[in-house]
């Protein structure tokens, strides 16, 4: 059955790696609904967090084919309950709205905050799950929402400790090797 999954991929830092990963989804006709990538706490290792609607069976195969790529450390499929995740959204609203209605209450109740205020507009930031962020749009619409922008998912995997230790070991081995080589 199709449902939402989070795929995490740990990669080397290399031009084109995004393309290498995404074409594997493309080949099986899987639509990527969000993709976030950034360097991990280990220098030179990047983490991709990809959300897709698909089936577990299909994704297990996709992940196998991603792991086959030379510059991939590991790739995993996670069910919803295996990850803690957040998304971040920004909402741009006309400054005039500050004088109408009770926007202050809305911001407080939604755990949102104001990032900046100019003469023309102000920007609200909110983190949460997709449903919460889009629900907030509805609440803001009466105040004249000018623009809305949302990030992809960032996720922490509940059982990820072992793999991160493995990565750190790799990193240590690498730096010891480099030191040894620089001595020679």
């Amino acid at each position, binding site marked *: 059955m199709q449902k939402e999954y989070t795929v995490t991929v740990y990669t080397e830092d290399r031009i*084109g790696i995004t393309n290498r990963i995404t074409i594997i989804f493309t080949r099986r006709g899987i639509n990527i609904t969000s993709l976030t990538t950034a360097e991990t706490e280990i220098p030179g290792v990047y983490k991709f967090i990809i959300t897709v609607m698909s089936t577990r069976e299909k994704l297990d195969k996709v992940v196998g084919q991603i*792991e*086959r790529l030379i510059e991939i450390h590991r790739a995993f499929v996670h069910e919803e309950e295996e990850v803690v995740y957040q998304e971040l959204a920004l909402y741009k609203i006309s400054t005039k709205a500050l004088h109408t209605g009770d926007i202050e209450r809305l911001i407080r109740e939604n755990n949102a905050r104001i990032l900046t205020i100019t003469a023309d507009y102000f920007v609200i930031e909110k983190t949460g799950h997709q449903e919460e962020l889009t629900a907030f749009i509805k609440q803001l619409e009466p105040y004249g929402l000018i623009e809305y922008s949302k990030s992809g998912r960032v996720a922490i995997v509940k059982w990820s400790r072992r793999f991160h230790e493995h990565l750190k070991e790799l990193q240590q081995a690498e730096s010891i090797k480099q030191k040894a080589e620089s001595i020679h």
Partner: protein
Amino acid sequence: MQQKDVLQMKPEIADKQLTAKPVITGSEAVIRSLIEEGVDTIFGYPGGAIMPIYDALYDFQDQVRHILVRHEQGATHAAQGYARSSGRVGVAFATSGPGATNLVTGLADAYMDSTPMVCVTGQVAASLLGTDAFQETDVIGITMPITKWNIQVTRAEDIPAAMAKAFYIARSGRPGPVLVDITKNAQFGEFEYSYKKCEYIRSYRPVPELNQEAITAAAALINSAKKPFILCGHGVLLSGAEKELIALAEKAQIPVGSTLLGLSAVPVDHPMYVGLLGMHGNYGPNMLTGEADVVIAVGMRFDDRVTGDVESYVPNAKVIHIEIDAAEINKIIKADVAVHADAKQALAALLPQVNQADHTAWLQEFRDADKKEYDKVQQAELYPTEGELKMAEVIRLISEKTNREAVLVTDVGQHQMVASRYYRFKNPNTNITSGGMGTMGFSLPAAMGAKTGTPEKEVVAIIGDGCFQMTLQELGTIHQSQIGVKIVILNNNFLGMVRQWQQLFFDKRYSSTEMVNPDFVQIAKGFYIPGQKVTARENISAAIDEMLAHKGAYLLEVVVEKEDNVFPMVPAGAPVSSIRLE
């Protein structure tokens, strides 16, 4: 020609003699890297963006032989043939743009058939990348899904490390093609050269650690089996596990069926060998796959041409899948015991844990099926006494007259299936064919590569009339480089396999499959390659003798029955047990 001494030939840098590392161009570094990796042959075609590399090559002609092909596709197939026959990495050169895009078919073919190959392409200068410069194409983007790895190098000093990585990746683990795209400025650039072979990439584990528990579980399954069956794939040849596989089969009396690319791993006359699996394979191994209770799949990926309908495949069997590529395990067929390992290591570990067994009755079932196939199909194919010549009898004669020791390079279609069915392979790596991709036009260039890689062996290309016309320009290469391949065209003046399907599944509506062919012998003559055409049964034996006795390349055109069909046959997508004998 003397080996180029950089310091002598470049007086302007002679004062740098005191430094340990010579200063050379990126182009020269490409050639020196190849020599470091043991490359003795390059198949290629020059052009604007790769000219500096060809210029560097000029000084190393005593160490590396360059074979000038007639089309870049030919270079890739030749490199594939070279690799498959010799076990070494095949190398192809091409220029940017159309030169690079012409490599695509061969790269895809090598990727599907796990063939170690390194392709070097020239590229426009780094400053022009992305500007639609003359003969610029995004070959990295194009070949990303059909290479094991690819890289674009834009600085001369990055060339040695890229080449070292390319060879390491191409040949290690499950082998595959690698493409190195080198911009023109990197070819011209000078730097202090040194070379270090690559033996480790931290994100890449080519050979998994053997899991002893999986071996024990596999041994237990085999020991409990009443009807075990080995499926021998290409991985057996790639890991050099032929002896281990045969030892296992002998010890536990396990019949062995082979995939198309697994052919030649086990001699055809070995008592445990029961034939070819799949669509046009033998009757026994297809029928009895359904009866097996334990299937031991070694170095194979359950291609749809092997499994037919996946749902009804191996209905009664526990599956042991020995496979080096984790992505292949559970991809098509769920493994009850997955042995993620190199085939040779896994089989060697398995052997002492497997008990001797006697499966005489089970083996007899295969022999009974063989008899049925022989009576219904093979006898008439192999020993016809009247009518037009048949492909199978030609293959039988070639098999006999080459003492079963030739490297057989087949193209794609009916002749491929017939050759694979009837050539009686004796030695490993003597079957070279385009399996996964089914690339028509593969055979002629692949045969020339195979002959170059293993010149001591007789190399016979078996080609259909349609396939031949896809790459026949390589006759020019064969003549120029004096490559002694024997070329046999089995000519039915049809795209025979498509015609067979039209006959069986499209109401004999022969849409665009009949061919009006040229005079093949005259074409060969035009390339200064001798040959003859045979149409009558009484002449075929002597013609094959003449071909084999001829020193150098020779073309034999054999006109065969026009509307012959290859049987047995499993219709596409049908269960393998529905294999038809007629």
